[in-house]
């Protein structure tokens, strides 16, 4: 198909994209849109340096290969290079959504689905404005490499998001309901959930108390636990941060104890949902990777380049946000494995604490953060009045050690407008967990 230059490793990723969108603001239809396009990303490696090109003119891929090759220095041993030798060869077609494609559902049906939820918002007089958005995307990727890979596979997401503004005199409150899936049916029939979310939001707005800032035992809902897993440890497990860094390698040694003995955090690109990544953007098959197993570091996430640098195996985590970017190490679906306490037992152990129910955003450096939206006091093991919290922070390693309870039921969430890393955002990711109890968190 392409003429790959001698003495260099080359791969080409072509993305065939279908997307659609419906948006409604306070009952007015803003937009219905269907978009289809193709784009390509070309990589050339000479053993020393990578040369990339992103182009929207897919008829000129060969020309781009040749031009990038002209910058590189060919070497006869390129196939033996530790990065190149690790890259897998697959010749396969894996179109999971061939018969369940969002492109086969008419935009009219998507519009009917979204507008069908509008009546729920109209029933609540305290909603002063709202905006609902439906998004979907199916990408069929083709990967061709100079090692012989010829792959064609797909991934897909659907996303429903409703932003509510509530107003009662001086009281204003904003909350978001969002659900993601890999199929259209995953975001239909959500009326009861949306109504419940609205009712809880109204109750929160009326009754939320100012916070007394300080250190609290905090119980995280499964969604917030997912953000915590993603931000607190998931990003630290992305091995590109360790390349050539002896101090980091020492700190994050496999087998090192970092948390509560029942704590396990897993990343798995095989799980259905928006994090589903059957092959990554280097053509590597998805793996289930334990990042923490029974409280100890068990693995990390790799691209070919990082695996070679740390002399470990590739894990299928080289992902690009779209055809404009090179694959870098990213999570897929990352979650905390369930423990053995019931949710009730978890709460019963808290005399005075905070329950984080919903979140706005999270971040993860040495200090991770979660900005919750709806939070509640816990008093004598029971949920008490709602409370305004700006941000919950903690040192990653200390906080992992401060986990002292994990409930027994896993909930997974799909976030289509998900993760950002450096310049690449938003990448669809899955995350979740059970309810998690953490001592001594800084709540502001």
């Amino acid at each position, binding site marked *: 198909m392409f003429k790959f230059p001698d003495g260099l490793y080359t791969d080409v990723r072509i993305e065939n994209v279908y997307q659609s969108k419906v948006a409604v603001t306070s009952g007015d239809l803003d937009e219905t849109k269907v978009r289809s*396009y193709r784009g390509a990303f070309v990589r050339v490696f000479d053993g020393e340096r990578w*040369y990339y090109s992103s182009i*929207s003119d897919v008829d000129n891929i060969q020309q781009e290969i040749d031009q990038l090759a002209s910058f590189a220095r060919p070497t006869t041993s390129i196939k033996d290079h530790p990065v190149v030798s690790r890259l897998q060869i697959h010749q396969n077609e894996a179109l999971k959504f061939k018969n369940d494609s969002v492109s086969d559902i008419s935009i009219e049906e998507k519009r009917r689905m979204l507008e069908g939820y509008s009546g729920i918002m109209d029933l609540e007089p305290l909603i002063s404005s709202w905006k609902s958005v439906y998004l979907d995307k199916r990408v069929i990727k083709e990967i061709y490499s100079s090692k012989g890979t010829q792959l064609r596979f797909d991934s897909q997401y659907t996303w429903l998001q409703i932003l509510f*503004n509530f107003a009662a005199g001086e009281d204003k409150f904003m909350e978001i309901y969002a659900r993601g899936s890999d199929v259209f049916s995953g975001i239909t029939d959500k009326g009861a959930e949306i109504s419940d979310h609205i009712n809880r939001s109204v109750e929160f707005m009326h009754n939320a108390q100012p916070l007394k800032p300080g250190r609290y035992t905090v119980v995280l809902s499964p969604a917030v636990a997912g953000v915590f897993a993603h931000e607190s440890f998931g990003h630290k497990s992305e091995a590109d941060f360790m390349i050539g860094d002896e101090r980091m390698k020492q700190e994050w040694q496999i087998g090192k104890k970092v948390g509560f003995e029942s704590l396990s955090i897993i990343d798995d690109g095989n799980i259905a949902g928006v994090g589903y990544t059957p092959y990554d953007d280097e053509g590597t098959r998805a793996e289930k990777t334990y990042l923490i197993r029974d409280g100890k570091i068990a693995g990390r996430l790799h691209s070919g380049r990082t695996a070679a640098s740390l002399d470990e195996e590739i894990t299928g985590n080289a992902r690009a946000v779209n055809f404009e970017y090179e694959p870098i190490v990213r999570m897929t679906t990352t979650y905390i494995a369930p423990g053995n306490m019931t949710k009730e037992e978890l709460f019963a152990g808290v005399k005075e604490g905070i329950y984080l129910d919903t979140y706005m955003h999270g971040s993860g*450096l*040495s*200090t991770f953060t979660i900005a919750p939206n709806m939070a509640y006091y816990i008093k004598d093991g029971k949920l008490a009045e709602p409370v305004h919290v*700006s941000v919950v922070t903690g040192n990653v390693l200390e906080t992992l050690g401060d986990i002292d309870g994990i409930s027994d039921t896993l909930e997974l969430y799909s976030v289509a407008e998900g993760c950002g890393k450096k310049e690449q955002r938003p990448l669809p990711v899955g995350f979740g967990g059970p309810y998690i109890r953490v001592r001594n968190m800084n709540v502001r």
Partner: protein
Amino acid sequence: MLKEKSYIRNKELSINVEQTKIDSLRRKTISKTGLRIYRNGLIGTAGTIGNYDEQVLEEQALAALHNRIPYPYELTKDLSISERYTSCIISEQSLPAEVEELLELVQREQPGFIFSNRVNLIEQETGLSNNAGLDLYEYDRYVELNLLFKETTSVNIYDGAVYFKGRQYDNELILKMINQICDAYKNKHDLPREGRYPVIFETGQLAIPLRKVITGLHGETFGSNSSPLSDRRGQQIFSDRFTLYQASTSADIGTPFFDAEGVVNEGYCYTLIEEGRIITPYTNKKFSQKFDLPLTGAATAEYDGVPTLGWPNLRIRESEKTVKELLGGRVGIYVIIASGGDFTHTGDFSTPVQLALFFDGERFVGRLPELNISSNIFRMCGEDFIGVSKDSPSELSLEKCLLIDMNVSKI
């Protein structure tokens, strides 16, 4: 039938740095074209990435009229403006060698640090025209340097960052900026006491301390009584030193001087808050008309989408004072990285500051431990607002410094 065409052409050379060395080079050549058809108060849109046939786009946009998306607003017409923000910036061919030389110098002068991330040379053309005489065009070419650094002994993903966006590339000035920050980083300071300090943000970071104002001035939120600022139009609620513009001047790199509906403001600015008094929220044509508000030209649109109200670039009016003068003899806490904080619904603000440096107005003095800063939006833009400097934090940057008195404590 009215027909409107928009396009974005983006060319970029991106140099990825790992371990203080060039790891990869990425070229990007992307063009996105959109076509809108307006008929009988409706809008139909179509677009494509890459090469296109205008006839096909027009047919698709015509077909999209069947979606019956209302657009009963008058199009901008009979306006032709072209802006070219060119400068003697570095060429694409010589950038890799220059960056390589920079990294060698950095390695030599800051051997205790590892640098990573990107240096981008970006060339962007944006255009909007219609058959009612509208023809707007902007060309820009600029450098964006965003280098993350960490101490070789650190277990963090990164410890700090050096950033600028500008139309000048000069290794000497970049090295000076890196040395100033890294030298200060090496000089550990404790926070002398917990309490109120002047906290300094670069104006490119307005979304951290002003997020509540930015979201509160959204025309739809404001007009529908959903904003805490909704009932305050015309009222003086902030300091009389606080004037806020919607801005798309040449200094606002990456923000074209026109919005997605072709609205062009005089001087490429629109005043939203004048000396503490709310003049208007920012609006597009829809919410200007719906809520009887001034039109500020804050529409955005995907290349193939319907114009909608976006998040415009905002600027606070600069004072006549330098940072040093604004500090008035005090030492300020200069925020390099503050990630993850937010406001409560009642306007209270709190954020961790992962990296802050003491700054005396002219130089960075030393590194502080991780901090928490907090306040309330009405105090931050009111009695505790100190001002925006007339000088920039570096000779390469077009940003200024925003100073606010805030509560500071150790995490």
